[in-house]
């Protein structure tokens, strides 16, 4: 029973203009049936800053090397401590503020992290409409296609995709029901639940699905083994402590720090994981509730597909639940974020000192064995700081958890520095 038939019983909410099937990846085609959603979806090209979020439109001349005439601000230029933290890794070369979904494919293709470094096809999982591509590569089986795509080079794989995340990546074309299409998420959530038969597409509630579709990309990940399999390190749980324990157990490192020599990790956008530690998740509030709030269009309520900072849309995103003036709601968010910035700065400065101290100890001839403890502390501190820093809400999704993590990071810096005292 599809979305048009079902509603025949009552009023017809949507009109079928074109037939969609499980291979239609062009959002413009879907947009014929769902023009309101499509119109808002296209607006993710907008760039507007909030105090700590959104994105700033930086104009630059388009060139052969980089066809983009607008990019977002460079975060490593804004905060050189980031660069130092990542010395020896591609992120110290190019890292920008993230912006709307419309840019996800081009921003990946044009980042120096792709242009100056060899990347696998795996990267595409979260930067393009890959559902039909994976199906094709796997002869109808997305898990097989996923494996093949991961093993391609980026240059090769990117030829196979055309659109940023599109309708078909989140919706079933017949019923319009939400669905997750990414094997990495399905494997991740199975490991998390310790149940290899768990199938979110049939077993999760509609409200859970409103977060799961985002949790396919807005998560911490690593490329496992030579197959470069996209893997979410959720085996021991969703907290940063659990992930560090997992990485330690499997003996993984992202890179060796160029100055200190420590085997360290890089954390990426763990929005889903941090959100899960917050009071909104506990209260059953989903990502879509805040980032795709309902919007009245004529006689219909629709989900605003202009996914963006809720602070640009406080009335719809927050005021249904919170009866305070817009200014007050914004002030609350900024108070939470301000506390994060203050504590993050303390921890980040401490990390810089720790790196300097290890470097100095090395210069004085300290052996690897002598540096072991300090390295372990750098690894922990750096992963913890990076985790809450890479999380893009500046602490809002889980204020208490964010600050707890920073106390752990500060303590690790302290212990690392003291471990060098005797040298």
């Amino acid at each position, binding site marked *: 029973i599809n979305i048009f038939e079902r*509603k025949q019983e009552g*009023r017809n909410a949507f009109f079928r203009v074109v037939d969609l099937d499980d291979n239609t990846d062009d959002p413009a085609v879907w947009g014929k049936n769902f023009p309101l959603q499509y119109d808002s979806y296209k607006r993710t090209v907008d760039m507007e800053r909030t105090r700590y979020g959104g994105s700033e439109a930086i104009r630059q001349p388009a060139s052969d090397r980089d066809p983009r005439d607008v990019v977002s601000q460079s975060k490593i230029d804004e905060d050189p401590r980031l660069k130092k933290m990542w010395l020896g890794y591609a992120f110290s070369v190019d890292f920008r503020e993230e912006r709307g979904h419309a840019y996800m494919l081009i921003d990946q293709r044009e980042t120096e992290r792709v242009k100056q470094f060899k990347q696998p096809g795996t990267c595409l999982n979260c930067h393009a409409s890959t559902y039909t591509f994976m199906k094709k590569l796997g002869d109808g089986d997305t898990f097989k296609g996923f494996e093949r795509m991961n093993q391609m080079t980026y240059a090769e794989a990117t030829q196979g995709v055309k659109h940023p995340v599109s309708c078909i990546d989140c*919706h079933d074309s017949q019923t319009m029901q939400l669905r997750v299409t990414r094997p990495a998420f399905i494997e991740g959530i199975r490991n998390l639940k310790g149940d290899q038969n768990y199938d979110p597409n049939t077993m999760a509630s509609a*409200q859970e699905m409103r977060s799961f579709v985002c949790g396919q990309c807005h998560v911490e990940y690593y490329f496992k083994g030579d197959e470069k399999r996209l893997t979410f390190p959720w085996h021991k749980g969703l907290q940063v402590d659990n992930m560090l324990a997992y990485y330690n157990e499997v003996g993984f490192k992202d890179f060796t720090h160029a100055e200190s020599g420590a085997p360290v990790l890089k954390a990426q956008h763990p929005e889903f994981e941090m959100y899960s530690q917050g009071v909104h998740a506990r209260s059953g509030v989903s990502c879509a509730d805040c980032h795709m709030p309902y919007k009245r269009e004529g006689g219909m309520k629709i989900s605003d597909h202009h996914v963006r900072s809720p602070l640009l849309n406080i009335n719809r995103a927050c005021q249904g639940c919170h009866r305070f003036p817009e200014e007050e709601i914004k002030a609350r968010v900024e108070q939470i974020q301000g506390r994060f910035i203050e504590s993050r700065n303390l921890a980040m400065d401490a990390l810089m000192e720790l790196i300097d101290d290890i470097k100095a100890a090395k210069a004085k001839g300290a052996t690897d064995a002598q540096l072991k403890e300090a390295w372990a502390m750098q690894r922990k501190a750096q992963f913890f700081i990076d985790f809450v820093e890479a999380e893009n809400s500046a602490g809002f999704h889980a204020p208490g958890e964010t600050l707890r993590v920073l106390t752990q990071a500060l303590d690790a810096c302290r212990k690392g520095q003291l471990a060098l005292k005797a040298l």
Partner: protein
Amino acid sequence: MTDKGKYLPWLAGIPLGLLLGVGLFTFGYARGHSYMTDDPAACANCHVMNEQHEGWIKSSHRAVAVCNDCHTPPGLIPKYFTKALNGFNHSLAFTTGGFPDRIQITGRNARVAEGACLKCHADITDGIASARHSNESVDCVSCHRNVGHAH
């Protein structure tokens, strides 16, 4: 949403006759006949309903929905069945005092109230509901916390 069941073992110890007697007494005392109407004041006969009554008076729905529009299902028989069930429960609770100060809606009544939103707002919510299994309801009050009265 509390579990009514927690009072049951205790209730089982009381002879049904006494129950009915007490219920009937309250029915008379609290002007039970008035609950056959839809007048919200009838609910507020019980001072423990005052808070919702006051909230309702200030709410956007005052002009469009009375208590029974939201707290009884559509259809004459279901409506009076629900009223009878609730009337009995409330009278009993009121008389014995075995209820929390901050009253929590029970599961069944929460579903009735949720369903009530759709009696009036099916059209506007058609779109958002249509992309879901028909058995997946939307918890309207989780966002519209002040509709009817504060929740």
